[in-house]
């Protein structure tokens, strides 16, 4: 039942209009509050989102620092190249864009797969590399079709150029794209086309060479096209690095080694440890890596038994052979052994039921320490080693820098190995055997050293200082390294040097390689590193000469040297793999290297650089000079070890 009967439709309408109108005012209020909430309360958040929409921040890659030799010759430098990238976040339809791209340019199926995989893995903000090192024709084509390829960008990048190619490959190293592990979350390392040092100075001094990235903020529209540049922070180029290397000497050394199948050589400053040349042969062209090396090339280099990718001066470990005799002699002298005590060499020495041979079949006869070194008499050193003992020998070796990394500022260095009795016990259950001391005394057995370690030992003997090698050239006098004295008696060192001069003098094992110019002579020590064991049966048949054996079974030839002999400034180490005897194969190379070094005199300390008289020529090596370590032989009737 109705209480009020309002029949006046007009008044009813007015009342109801007020209800509807009130509702509308309320809804207007809702709109206002919504606008307030979006524009004022949440305004900051939406401003950020709007900026994220329109602003695309990209890194400006820093220019990699150049690498120079000691005289400022460029060994590694950046060179411009062009590449195409894809920015996924600015590509509305990645699939369509890629399809268009693949139809425009010829992409191998493998390359397409790689791109798709990269896109799947990458964050959408980071560009993905489409193609590197694009030529002008492709560049023009891509520019032309830019509107159809949203998100595809042409970027000017840089590649590393190594003008001296094979000649500096092992020292300077090369660059390559970082692995996923290396890149991690680092934005710079994840940039396509960015390269980091993979070996050599490029790797060791990566931080110095890399530089600091800048950034550029671009305003882009909804289709990812760049509208304008907002801000730009320039990148900081990497540091230019000056090496102690003398490129002329380096080229000379590397070229000289071309005559061998596999060899390495070092020329180092005897007083400041600077490396003038560090040659390793065979080598490779590091420029191949700059442009992304092909799988085929990489496989070939990696599987090559001559290991062109390795710097043999750091990574090659060899039994030092007779070069180690200077270490043994020094240990003996410091231990108070009288160098003038004579030992008779009949050509062998028996210990227990084993016979240890001297390289000289008939024996050397009476030997003192000087002649023992000069003629490299094995028997003399068997006796000396016995007298001094392995632990004192090992201690001296360590003092001279053997058995541990030298700490040179290059990657991948090997520590080598200097055994002592403790080490033997730890490695094998049985203790040190007396026979092993004899083997160690002539630098064979467990002992392993890198050519660099041998160079350091030679420099320490030459200078009496704790020389450490380095490849970076100190910028100023203040930065020049100062080395502590070794703490060895000057008389001992002088005795060893004198003996080493004797090695390169008439009657010495490397007499043929003497320089022959007074004041510029060298001192040195030959070494032959035996590769395989000689069995009794072989000895019975007569040990074949190196030349008659297959290359892989020939001995390594070693030579360590310093010059000028009376006032040593330069040291050299030469290792010719499977080169035969050190005196024949290695010493002549060391001679040539030291002559060239003294001619150029990079340290600028010689009274006058060496001028070779035309008449002086290396004397052909005498037949007798064959220096081959003859391993222990079981005596007849002996029971095997």
């Amino acid at each position, binding site marked *: 039942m109705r209480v009020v009967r*309002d*029949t*006046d*439709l*007009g008044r*009813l*309408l*007015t009342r*109801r*209009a007020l*209800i*509807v*109108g009130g509702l*509308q005012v309320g*809804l*207007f209020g*809702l*709109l*206002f509050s*919504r*606008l*307030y909430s*979006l*524009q*004022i309360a*949440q*305004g900051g*958040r*939406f*401003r950020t*989102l*709007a*900026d994220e*929409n*329109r602003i695309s921040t990209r890194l400006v890659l820093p220019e990699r620092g150049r690498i120079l030799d000691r005289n400022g010759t460029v060994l590694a430098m950046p060179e411009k190249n062009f590449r195409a990238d894809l920015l996924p976040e600015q590509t509305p339809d990645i699939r369509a864009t890629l399809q268009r791209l693949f139809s425009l340019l010829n992409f191998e199926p493998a390359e397409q797969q790689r791109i798709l995989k990269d896109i799947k893995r990458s964050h959408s903000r980071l560009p993905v590399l489409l193609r590197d090192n694009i030529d002008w024709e492709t560049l023009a084509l891509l520019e032309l079709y830019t509107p159809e390829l949203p998100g595809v960008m042409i970027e000017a990048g840089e590649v590393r150029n190594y003008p001296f190619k094979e000649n500096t490959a092992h020292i300077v190293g090369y660059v390559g794209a970082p692995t996923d592990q290396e890149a991690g979350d680092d934005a710079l390392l994840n940039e396509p086309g960015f390269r980091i040092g993979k070996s050599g100075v490029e790797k060791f001094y990566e931080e110095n060479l890399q530089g600091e990235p800048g950034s550029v903020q671009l*305003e*882009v*529209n*909804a*289709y990812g096209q760049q*509208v304008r540049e907002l801000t730009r922070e320039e990148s900081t180029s990497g540091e230019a690095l000056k090496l102690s290397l003398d490129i002329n000497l380096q080229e000379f050394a590397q070229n000289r080694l071309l005559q061998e199948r596999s060899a390495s050589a070092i020329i180092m400053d005897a007083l400041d440890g600077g490396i003038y040349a560090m040659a390793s042969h065979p080598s490779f062209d590091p420029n191949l890596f700059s442009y992304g090396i092909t799988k085929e090339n990489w496989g070939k280099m990696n599987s090559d038994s001559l290991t062109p990718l390795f710097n043999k001066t750091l990574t090659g470990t060899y039994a030092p052979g007779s070069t180690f005799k200077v270490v043994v002699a020094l240990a003996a002298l410091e231990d108070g052994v009288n160098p003038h005590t004579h030992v008779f060499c009949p050509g062998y020495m028996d210990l227990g039921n084993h016979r240890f041979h001297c390289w000289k079949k008939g024996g050397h006869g009476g030997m003192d320490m000087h002649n023992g070194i000069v003629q490299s008499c094995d028997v003399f050193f068997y006796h000396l080693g016995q007298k001094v003992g392995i632990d004192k020998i090992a201690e001296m070796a360590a003092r001279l820098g053997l058995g541990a990394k030298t700490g040179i500022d290059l990657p991948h260095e090997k520590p080598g190995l200097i055994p002592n009795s403790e080490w033997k016990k730890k490695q094998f259950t049985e203790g040190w055997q007396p026979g092993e001391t004899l083997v160690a005394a002539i630098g064979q057995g467990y002992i392993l050293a890198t050519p660099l370690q041998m160079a350091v030992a030679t420099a320490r003997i030459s200078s009496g200082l704790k020389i450490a090698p380095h490849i970076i050239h100190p910028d100023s006098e203040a930065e020049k390294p100062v080395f502590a004295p070794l703490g060895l008696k000057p008389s001992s060192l002088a005795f060893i040097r004198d003996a080493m001069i004797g090695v390169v003098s008439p009657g010495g094992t490397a007499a043929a390689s003497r320089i022959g110019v007074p004041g510029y002579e060298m001192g040195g020590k030959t070494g032959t590193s035996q590769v395989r064991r000689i069995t009794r049966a072989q000895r019975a048949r007569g040990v074949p000469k190196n030349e008659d054996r297959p290359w892989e079974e020939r001995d390594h030839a070693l030579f360590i040297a310093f010059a000028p002999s009376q006032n040593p400034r330069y040291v050299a180490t030469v290792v010719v793999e499977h080169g035969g005897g050190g005196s024949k194969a290695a010493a002549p190379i060391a001679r040539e290297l030291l002559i060239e070094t003294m001619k150029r005199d990079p340290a600028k300390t010689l009274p006058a650089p060496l001028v070779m008289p035309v008449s002086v020529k290396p004397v052909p090596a005498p037949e007798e000079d064959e220096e081959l370590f003859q391993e222990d032989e079981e005596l007849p009737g002996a029971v095997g070890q």
Partner: protein
Amino acid sequence: MFSTHAHDPDLHFSEKLRYLPWGFVFVVMLLSLFGVAMLYSAGGASWKPWAATQLYRVIPGLLLMLAIGLVDIRFWYRWSFLLYASALLLLVAVVAIGHTGMGAKRWIRMGIFVLQPSAYMKVVLAMVLAKYFHQLTYEQIGNPLRLFTPAGLVLVPAALILIEPNLGMATLLVLFSAAVFFLAGVRWWIFGLLGVGVPFAAQQAWKHLHDYQKQRLLTFINPEQDPLGSGYNIIQSKIALGSGGLFGKGFGMGTQSQLNFLPEKHTDFIFVVLAEEMGLMGAVLLLVLFFILIAYGYVISLNCRHQFGRLLGLGLTTSFFLYVLTNVAMVTGLIPVVGIPLPLVSYGGSVMLAFYIACGLLLSIAIHKDARLDGSAPQ
């Protein structure tokens, strides 16, 4: 029973001009120019491609509005049903032969014009509903059987529009008709019944929705779920609005609209261009202009002395309000994107023309508020 013409002398032209609510005309003009200005900005601070075309429509549109306003309200009263019948025919034609645009048949080509009959339908529907209820007494209105005819008048075109399909427009049509029914005096219990019945009907309707419409409704619930799909538009719209702040980024400086992150910036999302570039201040200014327009509509309608004018005026005003509400609620993410333009401001010919016609009718009501119409129910 029926009043005569005797006490309702025809007005002279000069009198009509005197009675013309010039304030209302001014607000309509201001809104139109606001639209042109925003289209100029949306076009990249250029008359092309939208601002100039829009301006060429605004001028004849305003003239058409004045012309319609000067026509005697009795003329519109008399021809209401015929106009309605013609609009219905057009709607049927659209469903049958309509031009497909944006996945829906909404337009019909008539020579150089593209006609959107649903926009006209809403105007003429207000006319027939006003005329129908004008002729009923309070008691008659109380009789539910009397409501079948007007319900049919609403539901037939609404169904046709839904088939097009244009869910937004159909909903708007029903909503503003409901307002007319309510204002006409339809009893409360009817609305109570509908309050229960409609949700049920909606459930049934859901089954017949276009996939994109379902998707729109679903995406609305959680737009972030699919940022590059249907939710993309509304997210970009909110970013544009929100980043505008209090004073905006400056005319022609809206990054979202100028860099094309904002979709449909010249039509459904024109309000966002304004809000981004002129900030909350600009947005509120525009809403205040609409509020004034609607308030004007109320004043004109309530001042009218015949039920036809009152109902027609309030119907058209409510329809206006619903457009504004729906559009702004849509671009601010309060309701799903249903494709409703902002009256007088959005770019688009036929929809605009319908708004000018509606404004013209309001003018006619204002001028002829004292007219005596045939068939009014005894007071």
